[in-house]
């Protein structure tokens, strides 16, 4: 017995497990060496607390009431962009998802190509594409919808493909055993099985897209984001407050709604088994 070692980990040698230590040390070293890049400065952080408080204090103002109708219009535009982009992406993603699923694709080369295409599409955030599309087609909601739909196809296609890959192959065999064609097998054997999960995915993506749509206005791609930045830059706190509150409300509402719906679908699916 070594008297020096009073505390031990529940491992053979009494030391913490190597992989855990190695990953913690790696992260700490990475953080320490990048602290200057990120300009971490605790004095500055603490000093900013006063500013944060005074900023929060500024928010306690009477909202500018006559701005509200305009705000509602912009918020509606944000929601409309979300829905339109998701709907367009849905139509495009369904066939792409089939092509990118290992068990449904006509050929492995197609599978690889579509997979890579999808991962390219979702690699860059909406805002980058919005920047590009704004300089291509001009300001307004159109580039916003295009950017949202573009990135969403990347995510949705991948999720769909993954859902199709885990369906029950026996049911598919049941359909193809009766002489159904290539397309018929996919329509009647595969899609019905994947449908409940698809609905969950669409709700999740709708949620994500709404969050993204609220900030697209930053680069002039429509929605509430433009007003948000302007009121921030011009210190119009009587506008900033209702904007922030309305974003919070709409995002939270959809978040709860999609949570509920997904839970219902999951439980519904379990009940059937």
């Amino acid at each position, binding site marked *: 017995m070594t008297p020096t*070692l009073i505390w*031990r*980990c*529940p491992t053979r040698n*009494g030391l*913490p497990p190597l992989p855990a230590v190695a990953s913690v040390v790696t992260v700490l070293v990475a953080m320490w060496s990048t602290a200057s890049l990120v300009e971490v400065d605790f004095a500055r952080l603490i000093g900013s607390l006063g500013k944060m408080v005074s900023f929060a204090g500024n928010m306690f103002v009477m909202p500018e009431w006559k701005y509200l109708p305009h705000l509602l219009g912009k918020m509606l535009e944000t929601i409309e962009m979300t829905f339109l982009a998701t709907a367009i992406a849905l139509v495009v993603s369904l066939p792409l998802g089939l092509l990118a699923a290992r068990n449904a694709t006509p050929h492995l080369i197609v599978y690889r190509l579509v997979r890579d295409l999808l991962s390219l599409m979702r690699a860059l955030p909406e805002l980058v594409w919005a920047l590009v599309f704004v300089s291509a087609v001009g300001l307004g909601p159109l580039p916003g919808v295009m950017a949202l739909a573009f990135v969403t196809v990347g995510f949705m296609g991948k999720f769909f493909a993954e859902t199709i890959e885990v369906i029950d192959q026996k049911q598919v065999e049941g359909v193809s055993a009766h002489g159904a064609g290539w397309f018929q097998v996919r329509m009647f054997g595969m899609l019905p099985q994947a449908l409940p999960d698809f609905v969950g995915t669409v709700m999740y993506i709708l949620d994500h897209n709404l969050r993204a749509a609220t900030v697209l206005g930053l680069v002039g791609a429509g929605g509430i984001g433009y007003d948000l930045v302007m009121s921030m830059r011009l210190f119009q706190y009587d506008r900033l407050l209702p904007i922030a509150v309305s974003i919070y409300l709409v995002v939270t509402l959809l978040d709860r709604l999609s949570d509920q719906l997904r839970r219902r679908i999951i439980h519904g699916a379990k009940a059937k088994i």
Partner: protein
Amino acid sequence: MSIISIKSATKRFPNGFEAIKGISTEIATGSFTVILGPSGAGKSTLLRLMNGLETTTSGSVHVTGETLSKSNLRKTRSRVGMVFQQFNLVERLSVVTNVLTGRLAHRSWLGSLFYLFRNEDIEIAQEALARVGLTDKAWSRADKLSGGQQQRVGIARALAQRPKVILADEPVASLDPVSSEEIMMLLREICDRDGITVVVNLHQVDLAKRFADRIIGMNSGRVVFDGTPAELSPLTLQTIYKRDEIENDTNLDLALSYA
């Protein structure tokens, strides 16, 4: 001397079901008691009352002379080990770590944050594992073990607490006959050699008769029999296993004739 005493305890669940309908009983120190009864008789609830996993609706539970309350819950639990039907091990942790969780009540939460234990804890855990004959499996992950082995880890965890009492809730219901036999012998031996009071819930009459000092029969929330295994007659078995609203239960007679 009784180590646990229950005074006119009742338990009503939020859904309105009354699991315990007024029970008063004492458990003698160092005894081996089996609670016998059909499913839904309230055996589990009674056992969980003794560990504070459930609280009484009315009446009180006293363990080692102290009345169970929110303030001494942790202290009481550290003195009362519990063994579960489904073992309730943390599957991703090693066997040793699972056993060491039995020492948690004696350690501050700060050490627990970093999974640190004292040498003496490790020794206690090793001793407990040796006791249940699993020293060679110490570093395996808990979910890699068979059911009987997992239950022995569960008993080792209870032993590592250095408890005054071990409560076992249907410890053999998920095991095959051979493992069941081993687990019951182990519990009996712990009772005899370490002087630890053991209370076991069972639904197998033969195991109860062979291992118990005392049998408490329960039916729908009440004690309907309390005595030695020798006093357990076919007639009393009928009252224990009596089902409501069935006058001549031929299935029951048939089942009991094999018991």
